[in-house]
């Protein structure tokens, strides 16, 4: 039995790598951007990176839990989007800005 995997074969490792890259992009966006809307999108990116790792691992290990978890994450993310966007819109209407650095009223 020869080794049939080569660099162009899409193995789970590739999925994990892609997920890691997406997560890092999301995390960086979260930490570096000031616009609440963009930060929000970064959060979504991180969530989906995790989703990707879940499905990949689930398929590789032949476990259904990986797939199931993804649905939970999606549902939660959808709910979060609804609430989060509503807050952002409300803040924007009130202050005419969406920059999180100006929202420092709870500073200790």
């Amino acid at each position, binding site marked *: 039995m020869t080794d049939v995997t080569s660099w162009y074969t899409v193995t789970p490792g590739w999925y994990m790598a892609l997920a890691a890259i997406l997560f890092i992009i999301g995390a960086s966006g979260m930490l570096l951007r000031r616009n609440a809307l963009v930060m929000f999108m970064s959060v979504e990116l991180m969530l989906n990176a995790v989703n990707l790792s879940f499905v990949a691992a689930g398929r590789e290990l032949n476990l259904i839990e990986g797939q199931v978890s993804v649905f939970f994450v999606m549902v939660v993310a959808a709910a979060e989007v609804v609430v989060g966007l509503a807050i952002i819109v409300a803040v924007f209407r009130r202050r005419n800005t969406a920059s999180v650095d100006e929202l420092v009223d709870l500073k*200790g």
Partner: protein
Amino acid sequence: MENVLISLVVLLPLGGAVVLLAAGKRLGEPGAGIIATGTMAASFGLALVAALDFLGGHAPARVVTWFDWLPALGVDAELLWDPLAALMALVVTGVGALIHLYSIGYMKGDRGYGRFFAYMNLFGASMLILVLANNFAVLYVGWELVGLCSYLLISFWFDRPTAAAAGKKAFVVNRVGDAGFLVGIMLVFSTFGTLEFGHVFESAPAELGTGLATAITILLLVGATGKSAQLPLYVWLPDAMEGPTPVSALIHAATMVTAGVYMVARTGALFELAPVSAGIVATVGAATALYAATIALGQRDIKRVLAYSTISQLGYMFMAVGAAAYVAGIFHLMTHAFFKALLFLGAGSVIHALSGEQDLRRMGGLARLMPLTFGTMAVAWLAISGIPPFSGFWSKDEILAAVFQRGGLWTVLWAVGLATALITAFYMSRLMYLTFFGDRRWSEGVSPHESPPVMTVPLVVLGGASLVGGLVNTTWKPVLEHFLEPAFEGLQPAVLPGGLNLFLLALVSAGAGLVGIVGAADVYLRRKAAREEGPVWDLLRGGYGVDDLYARVFAGGGGALTSFAAATIDEKGVDGAVNGVARLTGWLGSRLRLLQTGFVRSYGLAVLAGAVALLAWFLSRGAF
């Protein structure tokens, strides 16, 4: 059937108290008084019926079990109906009913009319629980309940600061004695494993060593000195006169204060095993008798004279039971209940007539105006002075004779008792002369008058009892002794001297009483010039300053301790610790709030760092 009777003796006054507590105000005058008097009188009737058995012959003692009270300790709520308990119950309910009747007149128009009779009935029930107890636990319950009633009734007019203070003083001083009593009861339980009288007294000679017996009896004596106002815990009784006069008559003369005497007589089987304790009891009694009698000489308040007189007479009873002359002690308890209750009620009648005047210096010349009060009080006066054939003579004489017969050092106690008899006759005569004879020294605008029949009828009945009450136990026909015999079975009671000796002793003690009466007549009637001034009178009037000393040392010391606890320990220590914790928390918060920058992205960084740290930790553990 008998058991129901005996239970009802206690339950009737108790039921009366419950009804009056609930509806006393609505019943008003004289409904509340009639209910209270009726329950006490009915209780007396039932007790009389139940006691008839003992008169006929040697009926066995009865035990009435109400319920299992403390199954773990084997203590039941039980009543004991033996001759001693029966006699005490008869005295309590009989004298109690008369005093209740008197109170209907005396308390007329008082705001707390219903409350007064509720407390009085509650006291009756409590005292009956005390004297009918079949074990130390029930005895203790009665003991504490009468203390509570005493407190409630002393401070009955609680809007007077002096009355409130007197009630508090009585309660606190009694607590000191009760603490000793309670420890004594615990010691009894740890020794015998039971609190039941019969069992304890029967097994005492076999199981109890002299040392332990002495310890137990001394502790019981501490309790008795508190309740019965003996040295050194007597200070509360004179102040207790702040209560209404019927209260003084019922609780602080006739019944509650004799609880200590009853208790010592009841536990005579233990005192017999501890001769030292019995000697201490008699010595305390004799010392108290003489001491209080001298103080009574100098008092100007008519009720305080009687209060010190009560302390002194209780001393006689202690001397008797200490000398193992149990019958004589209980005999004197009974006659004293008659004549001292009568004296208090008579004093109440006088105070009533003079619109609340209690100072002997502003009385005088009342004999004509209040013939019934004067006549009945005169009987009591001669009785307490020990003039034959009045009741006090027989009981006092029996005590002195029994003490004398023991010989040795007891002769000293006898001499003290004899001196006390003389002083007693003197101060009682002083009281009578200053109240009823001589010039009229009343305040302006007072017009004395005889009290209404509701008050004089009890006086007359008690006067009759004081007159002939002594005849129940004369030398040639000792009915009471035979009656009480079963209660003191197995004990070795004191013996009386026989024949000529007894006659001579009686002559001497009656002579002492006569000398006192005549001496007082010389000072207060013939010369009329007793100004009672000078350092000696001041000393007597102030009770040798003992009260002030107690006030300074114990009350003052306690006050200083509490203010130290309040100002230093509480405010600085406890409050300081609490406030310190609050300040520490505040300071910590002011530092920690600096972490809250308000920048969402720094929070995000913290979350990320935390996640990474967690991940690193899991990886390093190799948990995957």
